[in-house]
């Protein structure tokens, strides 16, 4: 083999070893994760990355070996994603989420939260009033499949029995089912916000309607207070979570419809990311609600204790989200 004749070939020969070393390190990270590299290797990546980048610039300007340029482009892009990727430690990220990101997102979306909560309340009040006047409305609000016999024709004794340990299903299975089911609905409510808020709003009202109809049926039989306890123990957490999910959806839909000063895509993605932070929290809240509903409610049959737990939960959540904190604004900077 004779010596290379072209300048671009000499250029390549001088640097090839560095590139393939970088390539090897990246492949190893892909396979075994960054932890597989020792400190010296990790520290060498930024150096190799910069030299690969400058080689790419030079190659574009001087080399007509197309494959070489493509190789360097892909090598640099892969390294770029690694070097400028998310480097914070998972534990650190989780800590920041609970300390600042989640409550900040909840605070930032307070207007949407109020809106979603009012829509749900509206649905509740309207359907309560309608069902009290004419019991047939109940069937319009609550699909027959989920009533489990809890409709206007049920006897007082039966309704009472559903409130206190009527469930025969194994409790923890029930809790797990409630969690996955509710979390799915919450994610759905968030996703629907993309369509200019309307379906999310509809979902909020509809949710309120089922609630109001149920309340009316029990109230007509003089069981309103007892049903309140039955709902309150988990409902404060669950309905709050669903309201927040709707609020996150509203934020996205609103940004899409009225992006304000920013470009539409920019406004939507900012809203989407903020909403997503809140949604992580919503899933956690629904997990708690599932436990309260599936386990707590079935085990605790005293109305006052049920009310007390529900009230404690809503107080705790509100304090956590909306308590003014100076550290939050510091960390947001």
């Amino acid at each position, binding site marked *: *083999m*004779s010596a*290379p*004749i*072209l300048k*671009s*070939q000499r250029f390549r020969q001088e640097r090839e070893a560095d*590139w*393939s070393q970088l390539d090897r390190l990246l*492949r190893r*990270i892909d396979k075994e*994760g*960054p932890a597989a590299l020792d400190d010296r290797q990790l520290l060498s990546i930024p150096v190799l990355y910069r030299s690969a*980048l400058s080689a*790419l*610039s030079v190659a574009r300007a*001087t080399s*007509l*070996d*197309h*494959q*070489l340029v*493509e*190789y360097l*482009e*892909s*090598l*640099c*892009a892969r390294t*770029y*994603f*690694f070097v*400028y*990727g*998310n480097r914070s430690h998972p534990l650190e990220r989780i800590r920041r989420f609970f300390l600042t990101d989640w409550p900040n997102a909840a605070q930032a979306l307070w207007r949407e939260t109020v809106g979603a909560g009012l829509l749900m309340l509206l649905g509740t009040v309207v359907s309560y009033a309608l069902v009290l006047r004419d019991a047939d409305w109940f069937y319009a609000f609550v699909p027959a499949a989920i009533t489990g016999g809890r409709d206007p024709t049920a006897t007082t004794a039966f309704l009472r029995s559903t409130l206190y340990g009527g469930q025969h299903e*194994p409790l*923890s*299975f029930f809790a*797990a*089912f409630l969690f*996955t089911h509710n*979390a*799915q609905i919450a*994610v*759905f409510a*968030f*996703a*629907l916000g*993309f369509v200019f808020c309307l379906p999310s709003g509809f979902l909020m009202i509809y949710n309120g309607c089922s609630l109001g109809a149920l309340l009316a049926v029990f109230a007509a039989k003089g069981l309103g207070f007892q049903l309140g306890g039955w709902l309150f123990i988990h409902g404060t957490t669950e309905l709050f979570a669903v309201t927040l999910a709707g609020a996150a959806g509203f934020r*996205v839909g609103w940004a899409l419809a009225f992006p304000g000063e920013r470009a539409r*895509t*920019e406004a*939507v*993605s900012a809203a*989407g*990311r903020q909403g*997503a*932070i809140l*949604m*992580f929290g919503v899933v956690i809240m629904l997990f708690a609600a599932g436990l309260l509903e599936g386990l707590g409610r079935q085990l605790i049959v005293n109305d006052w204790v049920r009310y007390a737990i529900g009230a404690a939960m809503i107080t705790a959540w509100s304090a956590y989200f909306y308590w003014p904190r100076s550290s939050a604004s510091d960390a947001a900077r």
Partner: protein
Amino acid sequence: MPPVDARAAALTPEKPGRVRSLVTPEGVDLHLVLADAGERATAFLLDAAIIIGGLGVASIVILLLAVAIQGPAMEILGILWLFVFFGLRNVYFIAFELTPGAATPGKRALGLRVASRDGGPLTADAIFARNAIREIEVYLPLTFLITQRTGVDAWIVLAGLTWSGIFALFPLFNRDRLRAGDLVAGTWVVRAPKRRLLPDLAGDGAIERTGFAFTSAQINAYGVKELHVLEDVIRKGQRQVEAEVAARIRRKIDWIGAEPDREFLSAYYAALRGRLETRLLFGHRRKDKFDV
């Protein structure tokens, strides 16, 4: 040489409409290539197959276990199944995209990855947002699709399917092939292929070895575009294409000689690249053969 030009489109992977610039903080443009709709769909179908297959396998295993043990442990198995279902539907995409590769197995198989549109790091909230929107892109149309109704309800379902179909086909309606989820999360899906550095075609001293002596006029017949086509032809190594291209070049430069096609092409490639690179160093990039 029109046939070669036409072939260039097929041989070179250049897709000018899909290259987006990403300027690194060091000031170099990385020319990211977006994944096209076909790649996105294939990746998704692969993932869907994995999810459905995984769910099937998990269900069978859990069912067999349930039959085998029975009794109070059944409840735990039931919970396990619920979480497997929930996890495959919601967590699968998020967990895989949170890894350094930022790609699900389906995307990885096609050499794709998710990236932040603004060039910044891909954050967990963006990944959550882009995958939460799958609810209306995938599951909503599916729900309408499997709903069986008659009469007016059927028309409502059809309207719903049309409406939700818009979200499923969203990537076809914009230049950047963004899903609705990508739009909400500020992400896009780019190609991040792992390329190997192939040998330099002019690197084996072809000219000296074979003693081809091209005249200056013969070397000046082509420009950079043709050089790249020639590079592709030699790298692909399909004998028939090589023969055709060699015949065309011989005719164009009036080359008399019956060397093997591959040797001739390598030698001409080396000579042409040397000439064009020299001109490049003097500040002139000869685009193609029409550029003087």
